[in-house]
């Protein structure tokens, strides 16, 4: 049996740097999956949560199944990372959340030393009828800006099911990030995509969140909070398509620019194909709101401190 303890230790350290609690990866009462580079170095299944997976030359495959009706009390921990300065990690994953199940995933992706690291995630998610899934993913890419991250997620949410998905990358540098999320919602389904990214230096950020409200009374929210500082460039595409009666969707984008060389753009796309559907959007792009900053300055903060408080709050 291969001893992965040193690799686990290194990844656990990176996991903590990204905000995770490494002890949870060893908790036998919590389901977990730990993938270092292209090796699965830790896996724990619990009643109701099944994890199948295997290594590939460039990454790993994983299928996570939650039994119908299972109420998973503790979050399922997922840890992906590449510790060396260079490498490729391609994750192909499938999540099948059974009817009526309820589960939360806490995923941490760490590339603390990345000079040239590419991480792709090709995920298919199926949320069963009246099931509830929360997926919270936090990234840490180190300080060198050498990470390329390309998550592609396709979601199907069955009748009455709910998915709340949050992507957060606010520590360290981003490198290159291209998020592509797509949701297919059936009757009474609910989907929230929420991306929070703090770009610095020469980071490039593209966030695409698409929600197709295909079932009657489906609800969708595509939300993004992006900060672009230094020479960072960001683009957000929020797409909402109302294809069914009484579907409701909202695109909510805020992008803040800090610095004269930063760039940001927002492209909301709303399509209504049923005259009983209703979609809305709001987008705000520009510098930090002056009134917010001056309110905090009137409490004694400097302008820089005030901007930092506003930005940190927005990215929480």
């Amino acid at each position, binding site marked *: 049996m291969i001893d992965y303890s040193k690799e686990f230790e290194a990844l656990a350290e990176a996991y903590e740097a990204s905000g995770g609690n490494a002890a949870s990866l060893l908790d036998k009462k919590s389901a977990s999956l730990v993938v270092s580079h292209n090796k699965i170095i830790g896996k724990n299944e619990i009643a109701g949560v099944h994890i199948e997976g295997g290594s590939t030359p460039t990454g790993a495959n994983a299928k996570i199944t939650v039994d119908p009706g299972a109420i998973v009390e503790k979050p399922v921990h997922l840890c992906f990372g590449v510790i060396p300065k260079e490498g490729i990690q391609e994750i192909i994953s499938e999540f099948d959340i059974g009817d009526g199940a309820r589960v939360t995933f806490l995923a941490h992706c760490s590339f603390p030393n990345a000079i040239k690291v590419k991480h792709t995630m090709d995920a298919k998610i199926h949320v069963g009828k009246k099931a509830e899934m929360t997926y919270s993913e936090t990234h840490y890419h180190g300080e060198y800006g050498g990470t390329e991250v390309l998550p592609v997620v396709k979601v199907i949410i069955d009748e009455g099911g709910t998915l709340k998905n949050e992507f957060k990358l606010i520590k360290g540098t981003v490198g290159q990030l291209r998020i592509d999320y797509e949701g297919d919602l059936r009757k009474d389904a609910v989907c929230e995509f929420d991306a929070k990214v703090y770009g610095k230096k020469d980071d490039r950020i593209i966030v695409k969140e698409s929600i197709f409200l295909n079932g009657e009374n489906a609800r969708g929210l595509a939300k993004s909070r992006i900060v672009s500082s230094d020479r960072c460039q960001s683009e957000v595409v929020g797409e909402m398509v109302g294809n069914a009666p009484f579907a409701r969707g909202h695109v909510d984008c805020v992008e803040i620019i800090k610095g004269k060389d930063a760039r940001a753009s927002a492209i909301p796309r709303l399509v209504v194909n049923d005259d009983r559907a209703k979609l809305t959007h709001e987008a705000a792009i520009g510098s930090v709101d002056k009134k*917010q900053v*001056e*309110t905090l300055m009137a409490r*004694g903060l400097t302008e820089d401190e005030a901007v930092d408080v506003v930005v940190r*709050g927005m990215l929480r």
Partner: protein
Amino acid sequence: MLQLQNLGLTLNGKQILHHLNLETRPSEIHSILGANGTGKSTLASVVLGLSGYREISGRIAFNGDDITELSVSERARRGITMAWQEPARFEGLSVAEYLSIGQRYAGDNSLSPKECLLKVGLAPESYLTRAVDGTLSGGERKRIELASVLAMKPKLAILDEPDSGIDALSIDYVVEVIKTFSRNGTTVLLITHHEEVAEIADRASSLCGGTILKTGDPVAVARFFRNHCQECQHVNLPEQEEQNDDRLLKGI
């Protein structure tokens, strides 16, 4: 305390404040009474030093020092702050954090965030962890704004219409908070167009057409306001109305 000497401000070619003189006394509640559009909020912005309100003529002094050129932060660290008429909202910032920011510079014997909320009639257990965002009603947000000024224990608190948008039941809390400021040694510049609220002050000034027309006993100033200013046409037309001002003053 605060001295405004011959203040003038022109915005977009329009004179908003002119020949404005005002002096507050330590720990007093000083009401600024005026109709909509007479420059009350502009005056507050000038005293605080907000951007867009810095190109003034005249002088602002605080405790004897000229603060005309100081930034908002520098004025705040000298003890000047404000409760906005329509306070900003902050995504992701909890009420506890918001109140703590002001408390950082409050010095000894400042009130805790919990105590500040109790003073404005909000239950700490229901509000401390809530975000200062759009989920709060306008009235709740205004009370939290007052609490955050309380937390700062300022020397001068500018309260810009703290009574507007507040339900009748809550107005007593607002009045009591204003009195608390004064009891704690804070001078209050109370901007309002409600005579009843203005009358809780130690002194009042009537602002009309961008200048102070009368300062003195709040009841007398309120009467002056009622008789001369509520229906007058001074609103931000000081140049044209200066002669009328003179006539009005002579008729007092």
